[in-house]
């Protein structure tokens, strides 16, 4: 999951009792940096101008967000789990069609019930995933696609090569992950970025795709199924010219887009 981890150095807003957000000191530090941003009409990429940093979703805006939300240099900064096996299970649970909060609840149940182990039975995995999850005091929800995800997790945990997962190289790991049932390029990239802090993959989920279309580093019409790697190259090029780490920029874009999901949808509907 793209959670905000303890490794991220987040913007320390000063909020007083009257809900005052004081950014005056922030800009004292960053004014000189912002003044050296390229002119708003300068092209970052052919056809894509830098824009103003104070305008939503321009390249300059994302550069500013990158500067405001820096991550530590720790290679493990995006890891969520204790080991690669858990990370894979977590990402399968949080994959397509599942909100991150739901995926995390399911993962916590799997950990608590010690289901993330070699040779686990399908029955145990299926029972755990099909039981309702409690949300708040009164609400109970069910995990979507429970039987299908249970099968993927069972198949993964019953492979005979779990002791030789190629963690030495990011693209080798991604290629191996894509041999797992239920894992396509997005989830494989997600695991690879998390576990190895890979700067050579892109996690093209709905939030990154929307950001790409609004900002302009993706075209507004594409087929994610057939154009994944082409879009990935565009995202990586965007990061290269913005001079940001793709791994961190993804987390920052994802977080901002998710928090402002409705606003992004409204903007997207007005431009497409």
């Amino acid at each position, binding site marked *: 999951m793209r959670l905000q981890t303890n490794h991220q150095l987040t913007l320390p807003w000063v909020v007083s009792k009257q809900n005052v957000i004081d950014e005056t000191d922030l800009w004292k530090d960053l004014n000189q940096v912002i003044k050296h941003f390229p002119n708003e009409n300068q092209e970052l990429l052919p056809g894509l101008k830098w824009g103003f940093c104070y305008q*939503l979703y321009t390249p300059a805006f994302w550069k500013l967000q990158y500067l405001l939300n820096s991550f530590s240099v720790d290679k493990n900064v995006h890891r969520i789990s204790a080991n690669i096996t858990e990370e894979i299970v977590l990402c399968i649970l949080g994959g397509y069609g599942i909100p991150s909060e739901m995926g995390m609840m399911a993962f916590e149940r799997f950990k608590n019930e010690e289901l993330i182990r070699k040779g686990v039975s399908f029955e145990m995995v299926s029972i755990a995933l099909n039981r309702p999850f409690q949300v708040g005091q009164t609400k109970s929800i069910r995990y979507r696609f429970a039987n299908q995800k249970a099968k993927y997790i069972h198949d993964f945990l019953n492979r005979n090569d779990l002791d030789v997962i190629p963690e030495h190289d990011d693209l080798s790991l991604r290629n191996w992950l894509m041999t797992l049932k239920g894992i396509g390029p997005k989830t494989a990239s997600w695991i690879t970025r998390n576990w190895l802090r890979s700067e050579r993959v892109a996690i093209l989920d709905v939030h990154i795709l929307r950001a790409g279309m609004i900002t302009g580093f993706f075209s507004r019409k594409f087929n994610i199924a057939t154009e994944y790697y082409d879009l990935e190259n565009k995202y990586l090029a965007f990061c290269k010219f913005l001079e940001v780490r793709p791994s961190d920029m993804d987390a920052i874009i994802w977080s901002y887009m998710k928090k402002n999901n409705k606003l992004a949808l409204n903007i997207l509907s007005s431009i497409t």
Partner: protein
Amino acid sequence: MSGSSSDYSFDSGPVQTSCADIVLRTQLASPNPAVIAELGVGDILTIHLLSAVGPLQALTADNVVAGAILTSNPALLINCINNGSEFQARVLSINGGDCQISIYCSNR
């Protein structure tokens, strides 16, 4: 991972302070020197959203743009404005070409 709306109702929008209670101290970006030269501490500017993606602008009483709003989270104010809140800004200080302001909800 889906971020779109779902049966789980997790994507209910940003958790934030009530729009009416927001007070944001920040500065103008791209200040118009001629306009700033005519401003004084305590003057009131109106916050205007130019388009769905901004920028947020600070306008004088004569509807002249004094500058844009520089903030780390423009979506905070944009969401509030889209939901009917109106904002003004009080000039806190002017130092050379820099103008610091305090933004608050004006129709609470």
